[in-house]
């Protein structure tokens, strides 16, 4: 282009100079100074001719260049208007003279083109804004997802296709003892100790298996404790449905396992407890049927045993059912004013036979003037008999069990205490004695039981009667179990 401009300038200069020189010669030929004209006129005729010829060639060149320029302008206009030109069109454009209309067309085409560009720029800007919003949303979502994973109480570990850590939450870091913030891209076997290698193997194997999800119960021991985890590993798939990693979630099920074990023990204890009176009933009935009781007194004795064992069986079944009913809130409660002393007296009579059998002295108390409470009598009887029978059960022959009531007028409470001279409870086990199915390990051999009695006592006193249970104990000295209930004066207003 630059060369063309230079060429165009040279041609224009030559044309202009030739025309000027030619014109000048002609002007001098008709000018007033004849001496000068005649002096060289004949010699200068060829020069003038050459000048005219050069000027004519220059004009032709300029015309040619103008035509080329017009063609170029048309081509640009068509190009801007997105019109495809073929060879003939291009030739026609080449010979199209440059006119003002063409320049207008070019101007319009350029304007239109720029208008189109502006529209497209606006569209691009909109797209960029949309993308920025999407990026922000995506970042926020990513942040939320991370926040969710970090706040999950279960341990969560995400690995890539080479078993390297991509993400782990605080629970995982705490449990496997690694810095979960600064452990990215480390191999899981570097982060998780050898004693937990079973998990690493399971994680790696699950990822390689390419299955949807695999599950395993894993037990980890350390610091003298053992914990059981329900471990679920799910493969992570990319857009091409290829496994690109795995995510492991470890849920601590130690407590559930303990409850499961306690339930299993409970079923075992209950079946034993149910079968024992049933065994007596079956054996004595068979003896009566076979005529093994020879005299009337022996028969009466057999009938009495059968009756007592049937009652014992019924009591046990009631205990189990009541515990279940109270827990589910389905039990019908019939509260009415009652004297604690009277209820205690009734139960002392019930327990007398059992205490005599075991050679344990049971000491009652003097009646208290006012110890009215607003209670379900049957339930409180159950509480008292449970505390008394437990005390007798765990008191060796020759020992004693004492039951007493106190009234705290200031606090408007009645307090019942059952104190024995029994085996006592180790300090670390005291807090669990009211737990369901719990049996004091050290005393398990001392007597049989379901681990249900004290749990029922607590439920009746605290859940049904808004009272409180308590226990103090010393090994080889004895224990005091008891409960507090609001006096009827306070409860009465609520009942009316």
């Amino acid at each position, binding site marked *: 282009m630059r060369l063309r401009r230079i060429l165009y300038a040279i041609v224009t200069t030559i044309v202009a100079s030739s025309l000027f020189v030619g014109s000048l010669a002609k002007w001098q030929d008709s000018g007033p100074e004849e001496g000068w004209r005649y002096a060289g006129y004949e010699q200068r005729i060829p020069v003038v001719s050459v000048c005219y010829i050069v000027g004519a060639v220059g004009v032709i060149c300029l015309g040619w260049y103008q035509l080329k320029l017009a063609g170029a302008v048309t081509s640009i206009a068509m190009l801007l208007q997105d019109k495809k030109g073929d060879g003939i069109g291009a030739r026609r454009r080449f010979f199209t003279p440059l006119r003002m209309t063409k320049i207008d067309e070019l101007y319009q085409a350029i304007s239109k083109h720029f208008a189109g560009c502006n529209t497209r720029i606006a569209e691009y800007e909109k797209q960029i804004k949309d993308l920025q919003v999407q990026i922000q949303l995506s970042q926020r979502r990513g942040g939320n997802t991370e926040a969710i994973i970090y706040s999950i109480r279960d341990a969560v570990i995400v690995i890539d296709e080479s078993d390297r850590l991509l993400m782990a939450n605080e629970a995982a870091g705490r449990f496997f003892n690694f810095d979960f913030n600064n452990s990215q891209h480390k191999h899981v076997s570097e982060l998780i100790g050898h004693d937990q290698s079973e998990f690493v193997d399971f994680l790696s194997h699950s990822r390689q298996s390419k299955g949807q999800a695999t599950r395993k119960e894993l037990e980890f021991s350390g610091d003298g404790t053992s914990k059981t985890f329900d471990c679920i590993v799910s493969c992570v798939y990319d857009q091409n449905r290829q496994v690109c990693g795995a995510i492991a979630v470890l849920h601590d099920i130690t407590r559930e396992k303990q409850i499961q074990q306690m339930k299993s023990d409970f079923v075992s204890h209950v079946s034993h407890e149910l079968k*024992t009176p049933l065994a*007596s009933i079956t054996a004595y009935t068979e003896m009566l049927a076979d005529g093994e009781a020879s005299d009337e007194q022996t028969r009466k004795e057999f009938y009495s045993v059968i009756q007592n064992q049937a009652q014992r069986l019924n009591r046990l079944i009631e205990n189990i059912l009541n515990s279940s009913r109270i827990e589910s809130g389905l039990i019908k409660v019939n509260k009415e004013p009652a004297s604690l002393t009277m209820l205690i007296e009734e139960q002392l009579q019930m327990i007398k036979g059992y205490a005599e059998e075991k050679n344990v002295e049971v000491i009652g108390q003097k009646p208290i003037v006012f110890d009215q409470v607003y209670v379900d009598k049957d339930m409180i009887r159950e509480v008292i008999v449970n505390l008394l029978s437990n005390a007798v059960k765990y008191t060796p022959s020759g020992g004693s069990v004492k039951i007493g009531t106190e009234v705290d007028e200031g606090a408007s409470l009645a307090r019942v205490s059952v104190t024995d001279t029994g085996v006592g409870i180790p300090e670390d086990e005291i807090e669990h004695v009211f737990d369901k199915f719990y049996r004091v390990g050290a005393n398990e051999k001392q007597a049989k039981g379901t681990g249900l009695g004290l749990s029922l006592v607590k439920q009746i006193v605290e859940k049904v009667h808004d009272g409180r249970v308590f226990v103090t104990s010393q090994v080889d000295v004895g224990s005091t179990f008891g409960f507090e209930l609001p006096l009827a004066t306070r409860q009465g207003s609520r009942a009316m």
Partner: protein
Amino acid sequence: MTGKKVLVVDDEIHIVHVVAIKLRNNGYEVISADNGAEAYELACKEQPDIIVTDFQMPVMTGLELVENLRQRQETKDIPVIMLTARSFAIPKEQQEDLRISSCLSKPFSPKELLGNIEDVLYQKQVMVSS
């Protein structure tokens, strides 16, 4: 089998009582204990012909009682019948190792128990005479 001495061990006094009546009515001599430890002392002292014991008892279980009896020269050959309220409480191998003659599940029939005692004592008598 009359005159044979049977040691009955159970922490349930009613069970001991009914078994004792059944056995006495059939000519047996009966001694009793309400836990494993007491039964062990009595067995060493009285040398019963057969022991009928409950499985789950305070102080010393029926299984611990048998283990202790098998370690002592004068009691190692006393046949034992186990009463248990827990099914499958004693694995078959353990039963054979401790030479427990038979296991009866609670609730049990006194007649069935008597039949078991007679069978075991008869086998013991045959073995001694052969």
